[in-house]
């Protein structure tokens, strides 16, 4: 008798607890980011921004009453680590969504794994564009948003002869193809194009090649700490040409790390950087610095990573479930937006990419930033126009201007 009573009491005590635990069963967010290695410099603000967004959401009761649980693996700037940890996340931790990857090479390394497991995956980074994948959502800006604004503006101001130097891997090659396409469409000429292996940090010959053909401006699509030595070297050699880029300043804050005037006259089109002076941006910076007072720079990718968590939250709330297929359908239903540091941005249902506010950032002689122009609500139009419509038809490819979707 005593025994039964004891069991009954135990059940009575544990039942509400287990119910509460079940009710607060966390939403598991898997994160694969490079906390160490070559890319850590640009990635650490991203990780912090993700943590900030999660903390804010959890403080306000989580997603539909469920807290977000972050499961982060340090991928060490190593593509094989990306694959290893992506499999581990999917098989062991079984997250509701996976965020992450910085370099395009690492994204392409894990994309097939995500596709095979039908895993909902957010790539929160600016990149070379063209990924039309049912399982992948992208919150960063793409070339049609960054180059279609930047390149014509620079050609108007400085002239039509363009020289591109780009990192020699998928990001640089495809971005350079975009520059080529937009320069041609606007009646300019490419006077030179050079692809630089990621291991190169000596640019003497490149600088002379540029001087030989005298372009009106140089498009620099250089990636990583080694290649960023170019800026100091071109300044030391007094190359003195305006530069344009989609990635410099916004990712690795070269203007803060190098002594002026290494980046003098650099024009970049990020969708956010710390210098943006708007109420939304200032509020974001205040909250960011309250949590991470020693953050060297709040970058474009920090804003993209932050917005991504809120986009995911909005999608789950619309789907009323964390079921991956339902969340994807909710995102593909359209109207999933967030008011982030850069203002209001929305997920495009067709291409799984985001609309962005594009800021033209001009680096001054003393490395302060001026914004000569802001383009509001720039859509990721190209994939949709080219025939990628994920809401209607599943796809798992990456397209470029020279290899568009088959109609």
């Amino acid at each position, binding site marked *: 008798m005593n025994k039964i009573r004891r069991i009954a009491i135990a059940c009575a005590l544990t039942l509400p607890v287990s119910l509460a635990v079940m009710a607060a069963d966390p939403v598991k967010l898997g994160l694969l980011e490079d906390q160490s290695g070559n890319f850590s410099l640009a990635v650490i603000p991203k990780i912090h921004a993700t943590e900030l967004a999660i903390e804010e959401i959890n403080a306000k009761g989580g997603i539909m009453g469920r807290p977000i649980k972050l499961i982060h693996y340090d991928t060490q700037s190593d593509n094989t680590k990306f694959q290893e940890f992506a499999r581990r996340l999917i098989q062991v931790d079984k997250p509701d969504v996976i965020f992450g990857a910085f370099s395009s090479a690492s994204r392409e390394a894990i994309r097939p794994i995500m596709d095979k497991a039908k895993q909902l995956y957010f790539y929160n980074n600016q990149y070379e564009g063209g990924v039309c994948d049912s399982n992948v959502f992208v919150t960063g800006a793409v070339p049609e948003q960054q180059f279609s604004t930047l390149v014509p503006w620079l050609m108007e101001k400085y002239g039509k002869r363009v020289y591109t130097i780009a990192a020699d891997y998928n990001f640089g090659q495809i971005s350079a193809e975009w520059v080529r396409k937009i320069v041609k469409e606007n009646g300019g000429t490419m006077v030179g194009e050079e692809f630089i292996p990621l291991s190169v940090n000596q640019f003497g010959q490149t600088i002379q090649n540029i*001087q030989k053909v005298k372009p009106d401006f140089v498009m620099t699509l250089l990636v990583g700490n080694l290649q960023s030595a170019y800026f100091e070297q071109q300044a030391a050699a007094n190359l003195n040409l305006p530069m344009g880029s989609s990635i410099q300043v916004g990712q690795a804050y070269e203007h803060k*790390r190098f002594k002026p005037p290494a980046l003098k006259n650099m024009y970049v089109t990020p969708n956010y950087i710390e210098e943006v002076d708007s109420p939304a941006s200032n509020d974001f910076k205040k909250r960011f610095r309250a949590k991470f007072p020693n953050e060297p720079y709040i970058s474009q990718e920090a804003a993209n990573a932050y917005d991504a968590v809120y986009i995911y939250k909005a999608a789950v709330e619309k789907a009323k479930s964390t079921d991956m297929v339902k969340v994807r359908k909710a995102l593909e239903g359209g109207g999933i937006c967030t008011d982030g540091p850069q203002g209001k941005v929305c997920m495009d249902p067709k291409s799984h990419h985001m609309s962005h506010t594009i800021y033209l950032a001009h680096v001054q002689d003393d490395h302060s930033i001026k914004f000569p122009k802001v383009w509001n609500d720039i859509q990721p139009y190209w994939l949709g126009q080219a025939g990628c419509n994920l809401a209607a038809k599943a796809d798992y490819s990456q397209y470029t201007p020279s290899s568009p979707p088959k109609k």
Partner: protein
Amino acid sequence: MTLFTTIYSFLYQFGDSFAYLTLSALGLAVIFGMMGVINLAHGEFVMCGAYITILTAKAGLPLPLAMLTGAMTAACVGAILEYLIVRHLYNRLFDSIVATWAVSLITQQTMLIFAGPSIEGLSTPFGSFELGDYSFSTYRALLPFFAITVLAALYLLFFRTNYGIYARATIQNAQMAKCLGLRTSRIYSMTFALGAGLAGLAGALYAPTITAVPTMGSSFIVPAFVTVVTGGANVLLGVLPAAGFLGFIQSGMTAAFGQLAGQIGLLITVIFVIRLLPKGMGHLFNRR
């Protein structure tokens, strides 16, 4: 464009490449060539030299003194590392590779955690000069001469000082040197410190031209190993011809076919050299 400008621009590129290869390799060559230790923490000594140079220069020390401080600090760190770890691993080649690699990884991560992912660099000193259509960085034009000066100083050190004689005696036959009353363990620690200091000097000299990050050492490791493998175990007679030959191939290929070809050319040359001259180019000059 005049012929003179064209020739100078090629010489400048060649000198640039030569200086980078020589300065990266010397520290490694001393430690490998004289002590038979493959030091995978070579890049971290380079980083140490560069960081100390930048920090002391920012604190107000004149640049040449800051560079000297950087190199000396790297040498001191080298001496400490030798005492704590490397000393116990002489004649254990593979163990020393693993141990120094571990030191390299630990140092990189510790720097990342405590010093942050990057520090603001220095500007390249001395400005630029123009020649025809081209403009050149004066500092970089001087680097090959720095490299030659360092080589000359090493020559004097090894052939004109007591330390040099003791060191060469120890390397040639450690047992015999010991019998004759040399404290070989001290010679080894001084030689290791010298190698570390040379690596630090490379970091110090390149500190104003590249990005200072905890992983910066890795960009010196490849040219250093390529040069040492091509040159062989002889420090001066190995590094000088190897860096000259590889620099010529690299700058020539880069000028003709671009940066990728330059890198490929460098590595293919190494393959041919070690096939044809397994003991390195330095072996050609050995009078036997």
